[in-house]
């Protein structure tokens, strides 16, 4: 819609929604993510909303099914007439609806996925209504190589990547950067996301005598890969994705951390070590919904998604709340989010956050924890350009 007042907006209410997998095999992502969003919106509404409007949040459960995700996305926009999609969720649904959403031009703030298709450094027309926050996998891959070189003096890099979007995206990012940074990609090994035996991958890394192993995979497969490396007797340091930079994942590989066979590093686009106030607020609010989620990375993500949307609303403030105004407001200035996350939508950039912290797993009193090695930095900062 050009200049008319947008859909889903009334005097005292603004309607937003998302479709996500809150049941089935990925419910463990969708549930806490939704809870994080709920918690933030509840907090805002309790404070009287934004510019006199409460935020009403509708959610559908698509069970991680592409067709159903597409259907619900259309339903949200056409039937429910939401003002914006917040936390558009999951690779299947997001990749399926990208073009449709660009055509419609509805704002979507935060995607719960980092597929490459979201990367757009010159957004035009409807593409401008897209606001990725979470790092795009390709970008993360680039950061990973940079960290491997800058922090770990790597010359030969090995990559274990999952046969899924995140794995492939990160690999692409890595491949983009190796030439600039003058490192060799000495071994690449693909693993299935649900593989139970990754000895091939581990063996390939050892045989190729790499300096750093980048594990480009999410929780389950990444942990499996770490243990496979340990089983194979590896001593090569490991760098893994931001997806795994939470306490739970680390608990899962705590025996490796304890044994000290090799170091484990991770990217993190959220830095909870440096932003204790934000964490306290989050914990206080999420506990009203489910205290179990207090340390859950997906709940953090949902919280940030909601915060990003609300940031836009606040910027529009008392002005007329239309899509166009909202988009302009988001582009206006750096979007600063909880836990030190900063995203830049100016100059038609739609590339998510590209700055990340570098964490190292350590064993403190027999408990594995992430310690911040380097604060949130952009690639430029990392390689010191």
């Amino acid at each position: 819609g050009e200049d008319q007042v947008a859909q889903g907006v009334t005097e005292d209410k603004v309607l937003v929604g998302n479709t996500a997998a809150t049941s089935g095999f990925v419910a463990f992502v969708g549930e806490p993510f939704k809870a994080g969003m709920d918690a933030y919106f509840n907090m805002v509404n309790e404070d009287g909303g934004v510019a006199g409007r409460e935020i009403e949040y509708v959610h559908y459960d698509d069970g991680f099914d592409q067709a159903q995700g597409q259907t619900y996305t259309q339903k949200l926009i056409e039937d429910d007439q939401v003002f914006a999609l917040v936390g558009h969720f999951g690779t299947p649904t997001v990749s399926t609806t990208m073009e449709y959403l660009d055509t419609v031009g509805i704002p979507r703030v935060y995607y719960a996925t980092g597929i490459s298709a979201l990367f757009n450094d010159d957004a035009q027309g409807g593409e401008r209504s897209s606001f990725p926050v979470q790092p795009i996998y390709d970008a993360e891959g680039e950061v990973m190589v940079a960290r491997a070189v800058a922090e770990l003096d790597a010359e030969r890099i090995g990559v274990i990547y999952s046969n899924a979007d995140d794995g492939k995206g990160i690999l692409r990012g890595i491949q983009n950067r190796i030439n600039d940074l003058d490192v060799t990609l000495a071994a690449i090994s693909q693993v299935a996301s649900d593989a139970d035996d990754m000895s091939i991958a581990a063996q390939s890394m050892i045989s190729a005598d790499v300096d750093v192993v980048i594990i480009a995979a999410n929780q389950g497969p990444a942990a499996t890969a770490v243990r496979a490396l340990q089983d194979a007797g590896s001593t090569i340091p490991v760098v893994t994705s931001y997806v795994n930079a939470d306490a739970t994942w680390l608990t899962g590989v705590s025996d490796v951390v304890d044994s000290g066979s090799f170091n484990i590093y991770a990217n993190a686009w959220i830095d909870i070590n440096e932003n204790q106030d934000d964490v306290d607020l989050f914990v206080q609010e999420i506990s009203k919904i489910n205290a179990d989620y207090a340390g859950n990375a997906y709940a953090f993500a949902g919280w940030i998604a909601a915060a990003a949307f609300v940031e836009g609303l606040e910027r529009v403030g008392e002005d007329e709340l239309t899509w166009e105004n909202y988009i302009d407001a988001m582009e206006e200035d750096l979007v600063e989010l909880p836990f030190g996350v900063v995203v830049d939508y100016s100059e038609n950039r739609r590339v998510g956050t590209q700055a990340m912290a570098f964490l190292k797993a350590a064993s403190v009193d027999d408990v594995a924890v992430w310690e911040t090695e380097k604060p949130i930095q952009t690639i430029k900062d990392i390689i010191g350009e």
Partner: protein
Amino acid sequence: MKIEKSQNKILNSISRGFKTNPISGFMLFGLVIASIGILPHFGLIEFGTMGTFAYIVIYTVVALGLNILLGFSGLISLGTAGFVGAGALGTAVFLELGLPFEVAVLLVLLIAGLFGAVIGLFSLKVEGIYLAIATLFVGEILRQIYTQVKIFGGNNKVVRSGEEPGVELLGRFRLTNFLQDDRSTLFIIITVLMTITMILMYNIVKSRTGRALMAMSRSQHAAQAMGVSILKYRLTAFILATMYATFGGVMFALYFQNVSTTEWTLELSLIIIGMVVVGGFKSIYGTFLGAFIIHGVPNLWLNNILGDVSYIFTGVLIIIVIIFYPNGFVYIGHDMRKAFYKIKNFDYKKANLNKKTKQVSDDE
């Protein structure tokens, strides 16, 4: 009382009409479903409902094919999802290569038929659970191909004729899933396609082919002695089933116009088997009913009412329906009629209900 009587009369004549002319029954059914594509324009239902029904319509076609295997031929396939994927992704790829939609579809169906024939040949040697798992191998191989081979686009494949979004039919009508009106048209088109596949299926199973398939599965020896070639009908069954599955995939591509490469999994194959089982073995309407129960009920109602526990509830629903209706929920009609007659102290023998209906639902 009077009203009830005349109502009964009308109902009876309708049901008689359906019996003597089943084809018009399917057409009427198709018309009713197609109206879901129009009703949202009058604000009577939501557009979202249409999307859910599109899914049901598409999977009805896939499940019909599977019903040829499961219900009529006593064969099983755990690779169905792979073929639906083949239909959807194949259409997308051929369109991208510049073929007209109709040619792409024919090509995809042809390839699927060949695949079906190969599996049919295979099934002559490998039977029972071995065959089921062999088809699972095929499904897994296809899955690997979809996600690994670049031409399928990685995550998903956008379906489009030419540069513009949408699919061009008959070389001139471009229909885009993005647009509500187009989507309604697409919905009506796939409903018509479903109706046609239903009628074709009905004709097949009520013909010599249907009888031969059943003879082959219920008593291979009798079938052979009567001249039914097992080779020919195994091939027929698998070719039909894969073509139906693939055609379902084509419909998917046509309606949703965007195809994921990762969703053609064993889980989906099981869901489709579930549709046949829950709805009704050998029943065409039952197959639709099964798709409706397994996909429609959770997505139209359960998810919203039950939230978190809807997944559990869907599982429980499947289990309960199967325990109480081992041959499919479609037989609830017979039971209701029976209960009705029981109330009225109806004489079963006279109603001829008992032998004809009871025996179907008691099939073990």
